[in-house]
C-alpha cells in the first residue's frame, strides 16, 4: 500500500503538488492521467524516494519513503536510465549487478519478446527499441512496486502495442502495485483497474475503470474529458 497523506511539494513559488491525499492498494494497476506539468512525474519521484515532500508524508506499508524502502521498487523514468556507450547486454548486466531481484532468466525471455539484439549499442537503438529496452530492465526485476513514467512517449502505435502485451505478459498481477503515468490512454486502458486525474498538482477525480464503462458507458478517455476542468488533453 502506498499512501499520500496531505502531500505538498513546493519549488519557490511553484507548487507541483498541492495537498494530495490518495491511497494506492497493493496488487492493483493504476493510471495517473493529466496534462503536462500537472505533477505526475513529481508523484512518481516521491514514491521512488527521489523527491521528498515539504508538507505531509508519503508512506509505503506505513513507513515514510526513503531510498532504502524504495529498493523494492522498479522505476521506468523518462530520462537517465540508459547509457549510450553500453551494449544491450551490458545494460542488462549492469542492472543485474545493481539489483539482487533482477532475473537473468526473465531478461532473456524479455529480449526475445521485445525483439532486441543483445549485441547492439544503446546509441544505435531506435527510440522504439530504447523504450522496449527500458521496459525490459524494469520488468526483469521482481519488486512489489512498478512505476512507469510515460512509457509510451514518442513511440509509434506498433511499439505501443508490443509494450502493452509485454506488460500483460510480465506484470505480476495481484501482487505488484503498478502505477503508470501517460497521455496515451487508449492503448493502456484495458489493463488499468483504476485511474486518477491530476490537474495543477491536485487529484481532481478518480475512478474504477470497468465501473465507469458499466455504469456511465464511458471509456476512461471520455471520463477524463468529462472531468478535466482546465485545459484540453493533447
Amino acid at each position, binding site marked *: 500500500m502506498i499512501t499520500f497523506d496531505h502531500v505538498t511539494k513546493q519549488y519557490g513559488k511553484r507548487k507541483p503538488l498541492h495537498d494530495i491525499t490518495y491511497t494506492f492498494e497493493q496488487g492493483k494497476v493504476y493510471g495517473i492521467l493529466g496534462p503536462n506539468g500537472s505533477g505526475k512525474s513529481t508523484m512518481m519521484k516521491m514514491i521512488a524516494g527521489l523527491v521528498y515532500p515539504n508538507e505531509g508524508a508519503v508512506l509505503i506499508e506505513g513507513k515514510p519513503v526513503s531510498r532504502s524502502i524504495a529498493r523494492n521498487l522498479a522505476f521506468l523514468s523518462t530520462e537517465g536510465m540508459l547509457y549510450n556507450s553500453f551494449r544491450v547486454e551490458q545494460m542488462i548486466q549492469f542492472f543485474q549487478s545493481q539489483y539482487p531481484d533482477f532475473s537473468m532468466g526473465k531478461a532473456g525471455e524479455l529480449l526475445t519478446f521485445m525483439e532486441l539484439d543483445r549485441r547492439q549499442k544503446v546509441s544505435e537503438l531506435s527510440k522504439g527499441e530504447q523504450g522496449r529496452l527500458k521496459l525490459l530492465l524494469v520488468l526483469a526485476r521482481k519488486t512489489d512496486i512498478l512505476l512507469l513514467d510515460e512509457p509510451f512517449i514518442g513511440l509509434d502505435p506498433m511499439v505501443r502495442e508490443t509494450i502493452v502485451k509485454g506488460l500483460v505478459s510480465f506484470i505480476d498481477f495481484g501482487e505488484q502495485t503498478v502505477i503508470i503515468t501517460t497521455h496515451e490512454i487508449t492503448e493502456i486502458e484495458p*489493463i488499468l483497474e483504476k485511474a486518477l486525474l491530476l490537474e495543477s498538482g491536485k487529484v481532481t477525480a478518480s475512478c474504477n475503470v470497468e465501473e465507469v*464503462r458499466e455504469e456511465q458507458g464511458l471509456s476512461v478517455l471520455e471520463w477524463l474529458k468529462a472531468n478535466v476542468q482546465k485545459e484540453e488533453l493533447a
Partner: protein
Amino acid sequence: MSTEFKTSKPIYGQIADRIIQQFVRGELRAGEKLPSVREMAIQSGVNPNTIQRTYGELERLGVVETKRGQGTFMTEKNEMKQKLRTDIQREMIQAFVNNMRQIGLSDEEIHDSVHECLKGGGES
C-alpha cells in the same frame, strides 16, 4: 492484433460476447479448451482480472465449464449452442427493427424492404 473495445460496455462483457459469437459460428467447438486466463489476457491486451471476470460470467451463463486443474472448456451441451444462436438472432433483429423505426419506417415498410432485400440476392 489486440482488439479495439467499444466504450459503451465493460471490456469483460465484450470479450464474453466475442467468445459466444465464435462458438455460435463454429470457430470454437463444443468441449474445446479455451486459452488460460493469462494467455487470453495477452492475446486481448487486457488485464487478467478482466478475463477472470469474463470466464466467471460465461460459467454463470453455462457457456463454459471450469475443470479443476485443467482449465476452462466450452460447454458440450448442444441445446446451449442453439439457445445462444437464438439469443443473438433475437438481439440483432431487435436492434435492426429499432434502427428502422427510428428513421421513421412503418412495420409494413420494414417487412417489405427486408423481403425485397432477401429476394434481390441477399448477401451484399
